[in-house]
């Protein structure tokens, strides 16, 4: 018997297993959109879709960063707090009169720096990402209230322009700057994951870290890099959030890390790492957004129904991953 006859499975299985979760999410999204359109006349308005992007642009950016981390088999609980801290620091610095560009640069540096430090702690001291980023979460949240107990409004010209600027078509449909930024982040991330060594190493580490090490891949450097990337995405998310709310509030984004993790998992990324796509994460965020929109349209339902539905979906998707057997260990 020669090994040449060995194939990967029946030829009718044209869809690789690793694509099933993403396709399931896509199908779910279409079904939910279909329900919306059939139930509410205004739902078919293009602006409804655009609004989902506008309301969730910052979430999408943060979820992209989280995708990197989860692909390596890690987790980053600090993202919600880092988002809040970035918005808070921006508002505070702007209030003290610093120029907008400088504030932007400083605010964008804080997140990746914290992410880098957490990555170093995880790698060099071999500590669980859960606990390190939990510490990071408390630290960043503490920093928010350290800056101010109350919300700080933003009146800076650049910020208000960004907040109000509309990019639209002649029929009046529009998106905000945040949406374009989010799209740019998604494209860059997808490219990095698919076409760069860093991206491929991320998948390799998620598949089997010991093998990756013995194959000579820079495991430590890549680990630190993903937490830095997640920090950077949280920082960008924080800036976008401050565009959206035009303020820095110490308690904004509490529990956001969990929404983000839910979006990434619903988007088909496996929590143990090694399998998933940024495109899936986009779908995951959209699923969350469409659920919110549906519940808003209904009007009679309590907004907590969003959480209940997300909980059910998350459970269903984890079961799905288990059933189709995307786990290599």
């Amino acid at each position: 018997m020669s090994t040449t006859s060995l194939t990967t499975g029946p030829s009718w299985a044209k869809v690789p297993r690793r694509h099933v979760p993403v396709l399931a999410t896509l199908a779910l999204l279409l079904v939910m959109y279909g329900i919306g359109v059939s139930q509410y006349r205004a739902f078919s308005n293009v602006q409804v879709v655009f609004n989902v992007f506008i309301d969730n642009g910052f979430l999408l950016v943060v979820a992209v960063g989280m995708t990197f981390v989860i692909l390596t088999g890690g987790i980053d609980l600090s993202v919600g707090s880092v988002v809040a801290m970035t918005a808070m620091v921006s508002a505070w610095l702007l209030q003290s009169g610093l120029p907008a560009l400088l504030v932007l640069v400083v605010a964008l540096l804080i997140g990746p720096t914290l992410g880098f430090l957490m990555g170093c702690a995880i790698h060099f001291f071999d500590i669980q990402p859960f606990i390190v980023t939990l510490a990071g979460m408390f630290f960043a949240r503490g920093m928010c209230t350290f800056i101010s107990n109350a919300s700080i409004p933003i009146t800076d010209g650049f910020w208000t322009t960004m907040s109000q600027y509309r990019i639209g078509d002649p029929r009046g449909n529009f998106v905000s700057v945040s949406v374009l930024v989010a799209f740019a982040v998604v494209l860059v991330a997808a490219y990095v994951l698919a076409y760069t060594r860093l991206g491929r190493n991320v998948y390799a580490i998620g598949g089997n870290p010991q093998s990756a090490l013995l194959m000579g891949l820079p495991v430590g450097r890549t680990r630190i890099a993903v937490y830095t990337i997640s920090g950077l995405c949280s920082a960008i998310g924080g800036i976008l959030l401050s565009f959206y709310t035009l303020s820095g509030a110490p308690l904004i984004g509490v529990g956001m890390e969990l929404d983000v993790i839910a979006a990434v998992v619903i988007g088909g990324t496996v929590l143990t790492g090694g399998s998933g796509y940024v495109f899936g994460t986009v779908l995951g965020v959209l699923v969350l957004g469409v659920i919110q929109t549906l519940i808003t349209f209904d009007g009679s339902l309590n907004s907590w129904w969003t959480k209940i539905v997300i909980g059910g979906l998350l459970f269903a998707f984890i079961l799905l991953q288990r059933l189709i057997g995307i786990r290599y260990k």
Partner: protein
Amino acid sequence: MTDSRPVLTMTGISKSFPGVRALHDVDFRLFPGEVHALMGENGAGKSTLIKVLTGVYGIDEGTIALGDERVAFSGPMQAAAAGVSTVYQEVNLCPNLSVAENIFIGREPRRFGAVRWGEIRRRARQLLARLDLDIDVTAPVASFSLAVQQMVAIARAIDVRARVLILDEPTSSLDAGEVAQLFRIMRQLRDDGIAILFVTHFLDQVYGIADRITVLRNGTLVGEYPTAELPQLALVEKMIGKELDVLERLDEHPRRELAALEGGTPFVEVSELSRKGAVAPFSLTIHAGEVVGLAGLLGSGRTEVARLLFGADRADRGQVAVGGRPTGLRTPVQAIDHGIGFCSENRRAEGIIADLSVRENMILAMQAARGWLRPIPRRRQDELVDKYIKALSIRPPNPDVPVRNLSGGNQQKVLLARWLITEPRLLILDEPTRGIDVGAKAEIQRLVVQLSDGGMAVLFISAELEEVLRLSHKIAVMRDRELVAHLTNDDTVDADRVMQTIASGSQREEANQ
């Protein structure tokens, strides 16, 4: 064929770990275009030597030279870059990535920083064609058999223009056909001028492929010999370092006489037990004091039978009676309560707790059986542990060494001791001698004989027919996840007949009934 100048020279290598002197003043040479077997018992220092060479461990003393250049690699990556590639026993690939990517990751061809996927696939196909492997290079590695994965790992290793290829126990999980294919590739690579360092426990394989043999014993060099000038028995003698009494005694061991046990109630009686997708319905009886051998090829369902018996997997259908009484063996805890012990094939993943000491690992199952409220007195522990360290010649004979510092074979012995201490009435041994050396193998075989003489029932699973034949009263033959024949191990049964049964399957069964 061989160049006169070695491609690799290791001189005076010494390496110690806490409590263990792994290597002492070892010399080793490797010539281009040769297959060089590194032989030795477990714990002789083979793995350590390889790890020292590839920079996984630093060396305490000695020098390594590649060609004329002195080297000290910082790790496998640097070693590979310099042309020293290693394929480990546990295939180190990323299961989620495609075959092509596994071959090239870390050194992907790129244009402007972007990975060139088309180029990767093309080159992967080319490389695998060189190894006569025609598979879908875009499929994840996890979807292929271990043998194919091994080939992929070799493809990865030779692509870096390797001058030295280290194969650490590459054959331990391959079947005969796959081994033949691997050997064909090894010969081809050797003829291309690559120096191959081959570590294995299978003596036949060494004589099938190696040009030269270096023997280590207890971390010291015994010698380097051309294969043609070292008869097999002499090799074994050099490996175990004593006269061949152990082996000879074993070979002279009379074929186990048939125990006249058939009349009594069997200890375990299995009827039509099955699990969908794992093993077809089978029946099996095991009497006290009886050794039942389970023969069959890798993947024929032997381990699945063991797991069903032990309750590690749930059976779909069928009954098990223990001591004549029907019992549902649904969990390992129930099995243990009924006096069944299971030494699994996969000792790393399913047995040994690497950070605990030898003593703690051995005591584990007994303590669990007694319940945590009744600690085993220290003196009793020492007694038991010392007894089994001696009985199984565990090296180093120190109960307080963490098990991680022991070699694979010695870890296996610790695992065996753990179950023996609980004095089970039926012991299931799944490949207890795989990957361990001749001396330890003989010890374990002798132990099985002793245990069964003492009244213990043993289900002995092994891919090696000789040892199944040597030890068993009855042999059950597995083929394609089906128990195809029950043979009584009398004069009419020999390796050929078992082979035929494995090959031809159920017709044999009819002939026997």
